């Protein structure tokens, strides 16, 4: 812990008498945060407790924040009525299909950019120009381009995950150790062997850590995607709650997305541990 070093006395300060022996003073440690798992939980519980207290006591107005207990109750009702899965099902399938499309396309394009000069020169500025375009601005167009069925939802999520995946992937390919590639060449490996056996696995850590961001974005875009004619779905549920100013349901929906995000990030951590066990 960094906290520990604050009380350190520099070795120069103390001046013992000549000839005396005294232990060398400690001045190391710190700057290496250690895990303290329970603190995170405590922080959440305290925040929720404060919100509950405030909304009950009235110094947090009902307009500002719903009672956490009411949110919980809404959530239970949602679960009991079976609607939870009716909303979760379509959302998850949209996430899965959209993200799978965007990520696989993004990884492919990213690798091509990483390998070929001309593709790089042509695509990189294009991707840079696409990145800052807000997807919600394009909603009306997506309706025309992909319809109001599942197509446009997949497309929106795919589009949103595509650009960050491309950027992460070609960065990862650029970072693959060139000596490994030269090694492959020096043993006469074919171009495809080098790409498959050296470039791809070498880029995997970067691709996976890009995936963390891409998938978080996919979850964020779920709401935008479900603006387009979705009857069921967590995003649609949130939007409806928002338009009815029903804060309990709004928060219940947001909590679901938040949990979803944490789960996805946990899943990637597990995949990383599996796939990247070779990292030191």
């Amino acid at each position: 812990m960094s906290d520990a070093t604050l009380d350190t006395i520099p070795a120069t300060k103390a001046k013992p008498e000549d000839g005396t022996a005294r232990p060398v003073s400690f001045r190391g440690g710190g700057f290496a945060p250690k895990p303290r798992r329970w603190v995170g939980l405590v922080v959440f519980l305290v925040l929720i407790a404060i919100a509950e207290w405030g909304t009950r006591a009235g110094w947090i107005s009902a307009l500002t924040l719903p009672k956490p207990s009411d949110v919980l109750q809404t959530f239970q009702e949602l679960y009991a009525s079976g609607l939870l899965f009716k909303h979760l099902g379509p959302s998850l399938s949209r996430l899965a299909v959209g993200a799978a499309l965007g990520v696989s396309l993004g990884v492919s394009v990213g690798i091509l950019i990483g390998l070929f000069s001309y593709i790089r020169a042509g695509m990189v500025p294009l991707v840079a120009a696409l990145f800052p375009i807000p997807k919600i601005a394009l909603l009306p167009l997506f309706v025309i381009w992909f319809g109001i069925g599942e197509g446009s939802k997949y497309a929106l999520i795919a589009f949103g995950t595509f650009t960050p995946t491309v950027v992460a992937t070609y960065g990862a390919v650029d970072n693959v150790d060139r000596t490994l590639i030269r090694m492959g060449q020096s043993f006469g490996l074919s171009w495809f062997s080098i790409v498959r056996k050296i470039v791809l696995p070498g880029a995997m850590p970067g691709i996976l850590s890009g995936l963390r961001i891409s998938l978080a974005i996919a979850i964020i875009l779920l709401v935008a995607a479900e603006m387009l004619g979705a009857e069921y779905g967590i995003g649609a549920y949130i939007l409806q709650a928002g338009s009815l100013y029903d804060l309990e349901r709004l928060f219940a929906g947001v909590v679901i997305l938040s949990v979803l995000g944490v789960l996805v990030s946990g899943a990637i951590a597990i995949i990383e541990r599996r796939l990247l066990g070779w990292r030191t």
Partner: protein
Amino acid sequence: QNTKIKVGALRFTSHSGSFVAKDRGYFADAGLDVELEFFQAAQPMAVAIASGDIDYAVTAISGGLISLAQKGAIKVIGGALIEEEGIDGQQILASDAAYQAGVTSPAMLDGKAYGVTQTGSSFHYVGDKIAQAEGISMSFKPLQKVGAVIGAIKSGQIDAWNIVPHIAKPLAGSGAVHIIGAVQDYLPGYQTTTVFTSTDNAENQRDKTEAFLAGFSKGVTDYNSTMIDMADGEAGVDEMVKLIHQYVYADRPFEKAKPSIVNGTMRINEGAKLNMASVQDQLEWFKAGDYVDQGVTIEDLVNTSYVETMS
């Protein structure tokens, strides 16, 4: 020194009452110094009244509005746009594909897809009322944004929709959609939009609220008489359109903007009269659909002490 207030508005012709009252100094005459706050959508306007960011606004009755009223944040105090026989009101549109397939009147919409912005929005209310009246069933597609609905109907992905005339007419003119009916045939006297304010304004700041309604009503009178009753002839229309053009379609040249503004003409209630029967009907519909709490009463929603009500 005039009282400073903020009035929320959308850049739509239907908000002309406020534009005229401000531009012609009616608010100033009533002792108010009005600042217009423009919004991109109606829903945040209701929330902004609740948060105290603006004082008065005009919008359709929606689930969100009723929810906020129930939380004691806002009150409807008058009426604005109304469906009136003989004047172009909201039009019912069918997509070209549906039209070609024989959907030439709302009665033929059975089993079709009807565009709405959100479940529990005013579009949903209108569509559902049409379905009830015709004894048919339709599916409602929530598309959030008006632009998305337009895109969907133009490309035939939804079959029908209802919208104010200034959007309906140019769409129909382009041939991509067809007008197959009018909302007023199904909902005569439909109180399309209402004037509303915060509960605090309605209950504790009577003078200010009355002053606002006075100024607003004068603007509405001017607008109705010039644009609908043609009291000042074409020249009057031109002048009025010029006034409105400062606020609506401001970035288009006048020639391009004028037809859109003229097309958008709809009657606004004189004296902000409120059709209580219509409001009551809307409230019941929202409750029936479970879009709002069952405990909401008409008293939660409306403060009837300001304007004349009709029923």
